[in-house]
């Protein structure tokens, strides 16, 4: 018996991951807080450690709604102002 697989194909990815940054020293750091509870606590602490240990400079913190993609204005602002962004937190 022949049957179809029900999954079908996947399309081209709409976005791809950025290339890893080999050296963080001296780069500017941004935060994109998805406003989930405790997200900012976690992101701020990570940022503090990175500033302290690696020499990053915290330059910008933005917020977004967790259920929606970040607005273009926020993404443009981050891409202009910083070289590394911390983001993503679940509940």
């Amino acid at each position: 018996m022949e049957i179809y697989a029900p999954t079908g194909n996947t399309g081209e990815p709409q976005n791809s991951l950025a290339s890893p940054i080999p050296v963080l020293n001296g780069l500017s750091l941004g935060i994109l807080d998805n406003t989930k509870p405790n997200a900012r606590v976690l992101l701020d602490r990570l940022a503090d450690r990175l500033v302290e240990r690696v020499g990053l400079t915290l330059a910008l913190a933005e917020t977004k709604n967790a259920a929606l993609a970040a607005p273009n204005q926020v993404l443009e602002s981050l891409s202009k102002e910083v070289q590394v962004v911390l983001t993503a937190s679940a509940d």
Partner: protein
Amino acid sequence: MSLDMYEILEIPDSSERELQDLFHEKGWGDGLPMIAPTRDRVEEMLSASQDLDLDEVIASLPPRNGVATRRIIAVNAVMAGCRPEHFPVLVSAIRALSAPEMNLRGVNATTHCVAPLLIVHGKAARDGNYNSGLGAFGPGNLANATTGRAVRLTLLHVAGATPGIGDASTQGSPAKYSYCVAENLDSSPWGGYARTVGIDDESAVTVHCGEAPHNVHDMESSEPSAILDKVASAMTSWGQNNAPISQGEYFIALCPEHAATCAAHGWSRSDIASYLFNKAMVNVGDARKAFELRAWAPWQHALEDTDNMSMTEKAGNIRIFVTGGAGKHSCVIPSWGMTKSVTVPVLP
């Protein structure tokens, strides 16, 4: 037609039990037995679509970014137990799900218990024998049960909304098995719902990504306001996702008897929505205490703690349709919040 773009498996003739085990091993399905999507069955499902491009991309479904062609939707329709006459409703619903305002990525991936509710309108509901009467939300009707299930199977298989992978719903929901109802046009005093959102076609389907129905029981009232005060009460519970999100829609599924009471007193759909907008109120200070995160309209942030405000930012977010049979139970179906319902004509 290009079958090269589809994976076809040669499987040994086996018992029904072995077949279901194979589906399970492949990670397919909703946990219930499924029908094998053989070439013949899929061709039969597509029998009314032969003049169309069967490989046309109807939708690209996140989070997997799966390509939903007519053929792959038909495969899932066969597995769900659909009949060919239900296929245009299913294809149209999948088309609606891909509308940007639906925010399907969020709908599929959230920890909330949201499921897409299909409301079938007009000729397609009658011709497909969808149930708009007694027990409309189920169980017991093949069209409602299998079309709703085919949507879920498409989301599981094509969209990748697999629990724990592409679907983070904390508790899941029985509405995630199948969630499809028809509008009871014969008992609607105000005509069909689709026309209220600008769709004049004889057949349409609405997709509203919401919670399972919240019951509204009113056996005694002979005045619209008394019935609708209970609807407003169901709209103002703090636990629903619309509570901190002011753009959220509410679908109010009135039973024919509640609808008739409202209409007999001269109330229109917009009268009902306006009344509910003004009755489904909460105290602003209480809302601020209840929710640290609030997705409110800008003007709502300016309200004082002592003010009251509606559960949704405008009366237009309260949508009224009629379904069900004899009896005095209606229901409220709050949305997930960050999503908008979409109504489309039924096209093959």
